[in-house]
């Protein structure tokens, strides 16, 4: 059917609500974004499907990710009259228990929390039930309490593969309002008033960007969704597309209407097959309902969206490189001006926004710019989703109001570093960002504040580093990345970064000199000021910030040939503590280069041959007795764990 009138929309909403909270059925939904699937959500789903095949009292569906990746796989069980219970760490063996005990669902041990009502924002608050006794509400958990879900308003609740459920929670009602009741100018004014800034990282005011594209005279214009989420350590866009794809599409249609474009393109990285699948499915569903295509909602406005796949090039996140890539060329940036708003795709005015920017649009249109300004702070209104990862207990996607202090995110939501380690820094902004030491953790997160300490907001990666993270190694890691991803156009970026990497490699091997630090600083300055695009202009940031805040670590490597965090392979040694060793020989069996030898059963005889050892850490990982130790010139860390210490 085609939706044309408000009555049509309300009709579909009722259909959707019956699926979302069936009157006489239990609804079981499994968190199946990529994160949930790869820890076993798919197996749990299959098991449920098998066990429920003869039960007509239960509706089984998929949902996206609510953000609490640390406790996945998650299963939501909606019980009519009571609400939704969320079970955590669900394994196939738990399935039977869950589906046999709906009447006492809250008594099972792996209940995380309950949802009695939920504010999807684009509709009134939906009451899922009267609640379960003695079960914490979702918003009472430490992980969720400081969060504010605007972008993730539907994630982990609705089925992302069913447009009816999106419409049930008020989806496409903003589009209805935009096309039927607002002029393009009014929409742009509302977006300008909201103060929304680009969520891809640079923070350019979205409304102003739209106005530039709108004011260009042209028969053809384009809007593009930048879904080339390339920052390592950042995955919020993936989840936004996988868990709520229609919010992206709705935002794009509204954007197209506002600037006068009839064609939208989603440029998505090839590494995200599930996001691609769900977006394509959502596009098809929207077409069937007449929300894409000709004469949308009977308004006379035409708009279509196609998907264009990337192929693994970080630099294609840059607007002009992205356009070149869609046009079928290699993704090399070109100088601006002309800006894409003037001459973009195929030389036509083009407006490019990040996935998360697009998902904010329906909210602003529906609730108004002033409402949006009620979140965040003066210069950075709204919320931002961060991927809180690395050495932190509660990894996941967290959405907080801009202006929330870093410490709230790392400690209150994240729970600090695992196994009682001390947090040392957070890295924001990916390879273009910097490492922020704990002394700045009171800083409210917004665009200006992060820049003031040498980092950037970026797309939202927030990687926590603890005492076992080496900051020189971290700088080297990012340089290795940018050397690889530099498109090669500008000499300072292509050659300068390579040389910086060479120096950093020397330092981590114990061959550094004190003057290297100065050379690194000088090279950084040159590369920053002479590169054409954002990649080169920001690539030295990880080096600059680590030198600025963690110079002592550089000096330890240079002067004492020591890696205090026990990371840099050349500077560390593995040894066996013969007092603890029982001679079980597990390490010797598993050592890939046969560097460990000894007489089985006699601990004192076991030794690691330093000439053969490749410092892979297998022995440390497999020894159950903590008899393998890692050292670096006097720094000893017993059972620090190599890869599995968390």
């Amino acid at each position, binding site marked *: 059917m085609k939706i044309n009138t408000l009555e049509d929309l309300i009709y579909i909403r009722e259909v959707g609500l019956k699926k979302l909270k069936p009157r006489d059925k239990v609804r079981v939904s499994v968190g199946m974004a*990529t*994160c949930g*699937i*790869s*820890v076993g959500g798919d197996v749990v789903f299959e098991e449920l499907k098998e066990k429920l095949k003869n039960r007509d009292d239960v509706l089984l569906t998929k949902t996206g990710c609510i953000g609490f*990746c*640390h406790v996945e796989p998650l299963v939501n069980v909606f019980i009519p009259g009571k609400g939704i219970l969320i079970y955590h760490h669900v394994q196939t063996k738990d399935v039977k228990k869950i589906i046999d005990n709906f009447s006492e669902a809250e008594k099972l041990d792996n209940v995380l929390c309950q949802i009695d009502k939920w504010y999807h924002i684009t509709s009134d608050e939906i009451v899922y039930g009267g609640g379960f006794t003695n079960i914490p509400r979702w918003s009472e958990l430490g992980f969720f309490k400081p969060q504010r879900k605007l972008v993730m308003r539907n994630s982990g609740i609705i089925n992302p593969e069913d447009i009816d459920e999106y419409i049930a929670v008020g989806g496409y009602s903003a589009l209805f309002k935009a096309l039927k009741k607002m002029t393009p100018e009014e929409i742009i004014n509302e977006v300008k008033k909201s103060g929304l800034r680009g969520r891809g990282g640079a923070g350019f005011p979205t409304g102003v960007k739209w106005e530039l594209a709108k004011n260009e005279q042209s028969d053809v214009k384009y809007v593009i969704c930048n879904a080339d989420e*390339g920052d*390592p*350590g*950042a*995955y919020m*866009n993936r989840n936004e597309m996988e868990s709520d794809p229609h919010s992206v599409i709705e935002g794009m249609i509204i954007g197209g209407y506002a600037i006068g474009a009839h064609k939208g*393109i989603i440029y998505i990285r*090839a*590494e995200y*097959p599930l996001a691609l699948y769900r977006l394509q499915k959502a596009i098809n569903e929207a077409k069937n309902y007449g929300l894409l295509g000709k004469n949308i909602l009977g308004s006379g406005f035409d708009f279509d969206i*196609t*998907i*264009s*796949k990337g*192929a*693994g*090039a970080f630099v294609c996140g840059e607007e002009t490189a992205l356009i070149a*890539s*869609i046009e*079928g*060329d*290699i*993704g090399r940036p070109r100088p601006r001006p002309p800006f894409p708003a003037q001459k973009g*795709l*195929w030389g036509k005015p083009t407006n490019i926004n990040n996935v998360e920017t697009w998902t904010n649009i329906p909210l602003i249109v529906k609730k108004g710019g002033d409402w949006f300004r009620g979140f965040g702070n003066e210069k950075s209104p709204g919320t931002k989703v961060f*991927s809180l*990862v*690395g*050495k932190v207990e509660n*990894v996941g*996607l967290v959405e907080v109001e801009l202006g929330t202090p870093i410490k709230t995110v790392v400690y209150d939501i994240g729970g600090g570093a695992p196994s009682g380690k001390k947090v040392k820094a957070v*890295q924001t902004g*990916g390879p273009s960002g910097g490492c922020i030491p704990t002394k700045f953790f009171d800083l409210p997160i917004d665009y200006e504040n992060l820049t003031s300490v040498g980092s950037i907001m970026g797309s939202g*990666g927030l*990687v926590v580093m603890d005492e076992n993270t080496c900051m020189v190694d*971290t700088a080297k*890691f*990012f340089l290795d*990345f940018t050397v*690889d*991803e530099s*498109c090669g156009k500008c000499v300072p970026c292509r050659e300068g970064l390579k040389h910086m990497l060479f120096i950093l490699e020397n330092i981590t091997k114990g061959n550094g000199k004190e003057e290297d630090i100065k050379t690194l600083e000088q090279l950084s300055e040159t590369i920053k000021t002479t590169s054409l695009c954002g990649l080169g202009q920001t690539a030295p940031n990880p080096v600059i910030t680590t030198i600025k805040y963690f110079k002592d670590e550089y000096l330890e490597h240079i002067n004492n040939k020591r890696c205090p965090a026990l990371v840099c392979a050349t500077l560390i040694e593995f040894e066996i503590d013969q007092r603890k060793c029982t001679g079980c020989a597990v390490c010797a069996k598993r050592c*890939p*280069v046969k560097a460990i030898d000894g007489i089985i059963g006699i601990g004192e005889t076991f030794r690691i041959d330093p000439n053969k050892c490749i410092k*892979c*850490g*297998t022995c440390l*990982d*497999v020894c159950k007795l903590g008899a393998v130790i890692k050292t670096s010139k006097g720094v000893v860390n017993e059972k620090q764990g*190599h*890869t*599995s210490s*968390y």
Partner: protein
Amino acid sequence: MNKEHVENIIRRYENPEGKILGILEDIQETYKYLPKESLEFVSKKLGMPLSKLYSIATFYSFFNLKPVGEHIITVCMGTACHVRGAKDILNNLIELLKIGVNETTEDGKFFLTTEDKHFSLNTARCFGCCSMAPVIRVDDKIFGYVTIKDLPKILKAYGWKSK
């Protein structure tokens, strides 16, 4: 290379946006790499210089110009995986599969294939599964929270035998 198949792939792309990358990706999906004849064929069909297709295939890390092993193992080297030990995972895989260190293909990409062509090993910049770091992917399946200890078990499921 099956000409008809590649022709069908080309026909799939009506829109000019994303056409070239899309065609090359679909060819790679079929053959796991881009056979030289397929590039020559596409070049003729689209009237596009072969040199341009070659430049695209070498610029984007997604494409392989050489045949690859039956199972492709990709180690994520994103930031979260890095701080949680991805490098050790990679080094261990290199040792377990007995393939050379720091070898790159002619186009400068890191891509190793075992002698029996059973496994290929490469790295990726980020799968976007950072919450489960370190992460590896074997063919289409993603494994989260991988430890060195787990590796032999994972490999065995794909026909690896300890030597």
